[in-house]
């Protein structure tokens, strides 16, 4: 294999593995804020226990997110040096801003969130939790700014610097709010909230099935299902917005997502099916008019097909189609699961329906897989460009890179990441089996004062 293929595999592997964790951190961050707020408001010790238990899980996902995230920052330089020279002016700023505004905030206050339980007051601790959550969201903002700029570049001009063309910023706010950024950020964050919420749902449902930690699990489940339902519904809405944005700015990508070879009005949306690339058609169940609606909010609008795109500018159709439809399918399923779960919970029959609890246990896989597939679709659909209509992926590669160097790093990454993944699952399972700690029902240190052992409603001084 050549350096290009190897580097692409390596980037795909490392970013895919990294992206298992940040959505969980963002989503769990929101869950922690809600749980701690509930504790501050109601003084019910079970919320304290809940916040502490999920903090442990948060710490685990955060550690792996940090460890695998630093790889990403290095890789732009190591494997994609020509790309880095080309976009440093624009892309580098977003990464640096991410460091200053997001990572410091997140990791700094994480110290208080994890280790400050006995050292600071409740309010300071709650503030720290909010800051960690905010930092996690900021990191999503800046990385989506950077990535969206690769999809829909704006606010720059091409300049020759020492005889080499590169993109330079003309308008910073146009770079930040490039055409796809807001929609894609919304979509990414909804996915992250789903990931956090369904993890809580899954673990709580498991406890209910095992009939352990029942009070803890019921309350967790209620919070998780509510956030999960809201996030899933928002995700459907944001998917529609993203669809329109892609249709407008990246028609080739949308055509690949849908395997739409011929430009047509009243375009149908494939519900389930596959692409026959040789005969250039899609085989499967199609809903008439829906693609036109998804793309242009109009059931009869004309949707650009691949025939309007020069063959050398087309993304790989089969893969884009599969990733995109996988994501959409799971997204719909998650709305259904969250809605049914909430309905049962509202009718107070959920705890008796063991089959539903089992579905909820496995629901955690939904957002994780959909988040992965969504990014695959977004990035494969961007091909053959590394920066949309400005630079092709092969042009971005480091010029001096040797295949054997990339082979060795790729093998090492694969081995180490498999090991890390196994450890993550092992450790996560360990924490779940261990369950919430009963000692955590009694807040200690500064948090317990001046009302030790009692959950007093009249006064709460911090």
């Amino acid at each position, binding site marked *: 294999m050549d350096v290009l293929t190897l580097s692409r595999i390596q980037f795909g592997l490392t970013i895919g593995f990294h992206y298992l964790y940040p959505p969980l951190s963002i989503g769990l961050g929101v869950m922690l804020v809600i749980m701690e707020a509930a504790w501050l408001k109601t003084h019910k010790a079970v919320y304290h226990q809940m916040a502490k238990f999920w903090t442990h899980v948060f710490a685990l996902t955060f550690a792996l997110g940090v460890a695998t995230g630093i790889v990403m920052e290095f890789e*732009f*330089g190591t494997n994609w040096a020509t790309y880095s020279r080309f976009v440093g002016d624009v892309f580098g700023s977003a990464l640096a801003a991410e460091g200053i505004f997001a990572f410091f905030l997140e990791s700094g206050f994480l110290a208080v969130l994890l280790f400050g339980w006995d*050292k600071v007051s409740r309010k300071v601790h709650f503030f720290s939790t909010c800051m960690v959550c905010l930092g996690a969201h900021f990191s999503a903002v800046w990385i989506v700014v950077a990535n969206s700029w690769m999809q829909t570049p704006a606010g720059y001009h091409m300049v020759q610097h020492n005889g080499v063309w590169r993109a330079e910023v003309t308008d910073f706010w146009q770079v930040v709010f490039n055409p796809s950024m807001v929609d894609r950020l919304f979509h990414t964050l909804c996915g992250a909230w789903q990931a956090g919420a369904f993890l809580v749902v899954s673990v709580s449902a498991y406890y209910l099935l095992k009939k352990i930690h029942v009070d803890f699990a019921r309350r967790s489940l209620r919070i998780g299902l509510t956030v999960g339902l809201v996030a899933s519904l928002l995700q459907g809405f944001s998917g529609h917005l993203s669809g329109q944005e892609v249709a407008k700015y990246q028609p080739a990508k949308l055509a690949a997502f849908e395997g739409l070879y011929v430009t047509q009005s009243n375009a149908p949306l494939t519900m389930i099916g596959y692409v026959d690339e040789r005969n250039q058609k899609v085989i499967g169940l199609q809903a008439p008019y829906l693609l036109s609606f998804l793309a242009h909010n109009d059931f009869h609008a004309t949707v650009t097909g691949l025939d309007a795109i020069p063959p050398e500018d087309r993304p790989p159709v089969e893969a884009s189609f599969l990733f995109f439809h996988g994501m959409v399918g799971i997204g719909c399923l998650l709305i259904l699961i969250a809605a049914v779960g909430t309905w049962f919970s509202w009718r107070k029959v959920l705890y008796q329906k063991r089959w539903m609890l089992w579905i909820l246990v496995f629901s955690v896989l939904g957002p994780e897989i959909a988040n992965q597939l969504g990014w695959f679709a977004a990035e494969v659909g961007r091909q053959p460009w590394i920066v949309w209509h400005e630079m092709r992926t092969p042009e971005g590669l480091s010029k001096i890179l040797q295949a054997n160097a990339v082979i060795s790093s790729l093998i090492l990454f694969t081995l180490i990441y498999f090991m890390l993944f196994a450890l993550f699952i092992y450790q996560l399972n360990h924490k779940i089996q261990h369950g919430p700690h009963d000692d955590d029902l009694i807040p200690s240190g500064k948090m317990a004062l001046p009302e030790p052992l009692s959950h007093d409603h009249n006064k709460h001084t911090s």
Partner: protein
Amino acid sequence: MKFDLNTVWFILVGVLFTGYAMLDGFDLGIGALHLFTKKDEERRVMINAIGPVWDGNEVWLVTGGGALFAAFPNVYATVFSGFYLAFILLLFALIFRAVAIEFRSKQPMYWWRQMWDIGFAVGSILSALLIGVAMGNIAYGIPIDSNGEFAGTFLGLLTPYPLLLGITTVALFMMHGAIYGLMKTEGELHDKLRRWAMNCIIFFVICAACTTMVTLLYVPHMAERVKDHPRLFSIALANMLAIANIPREFYHGRDWRAFLSSCATMLTLMALFGINQYPYMVFSQPNPENSLDIYNAASSQQTMRIMLVIACIGVPVVLTYTTCIYWIFRGKVKMDRMSY
């Protein structure tokens, strides 16, 4: 020297990496000393001494890298692609260190803890060594072709001078970590750390003396500016005084002041490095005309202006809450159920 945006960013990138050295330096140092104690409880105390802060400290490296990418994309591209294997190794070292801290104390098995302890120590030492080797290569100069691409090999990076700087960096971080450990521990472990700190100081002073001599003899361009501008010699003097002050404060048992002296040592070393390097970012050896400097490697003035605004807003806020967090976690390590 013109005090323009490029110079400002040269200094700011230097400040970020100095911040990294002063903060993550003691994390790496604690890691390097980790295996010297055999007792599980003491190893846990060592890890928990850096537990709440190591993560935030590593962000200085991430932000420094981001700032380098934004302000001097050509340096970032040339160095990162040129030092490919070295940086991949650095990544693995940092990964192992991070997950070792997280996983180590989560299981009681001896082999499990031993495995992560070794990962933690090796990861820390290797990180410090590689950072030093990279600095050594930048100082000595690396082969760069007319397109600004690295023209050497991986093994070509492991020449004596960079290796010497690598070992010096390990010594510096070990000393820094040992002194930091003194502030965080008490009892038996504190006494042990006191012995190790003494040895580390001796180790570092020897390394520093060797590095200074070798630099003056074999890497004359790294001493040229200080020679030409006698006023700058005051920084070299400050550096020597800072180093000399470490054993003095240490002897009197003033750990906090010894730690500050160690920080001052790093600050002045980085300042000397920057002053002699300026305006070059990466010196090209043997073709100096291909060197990357703060002008031919820079991003646009517009970007540097924007980034400066971002830095002016962000850095004071970061420094404020980082200080608060260090204040919250001041004092000796107390273990509880949340500890690593």
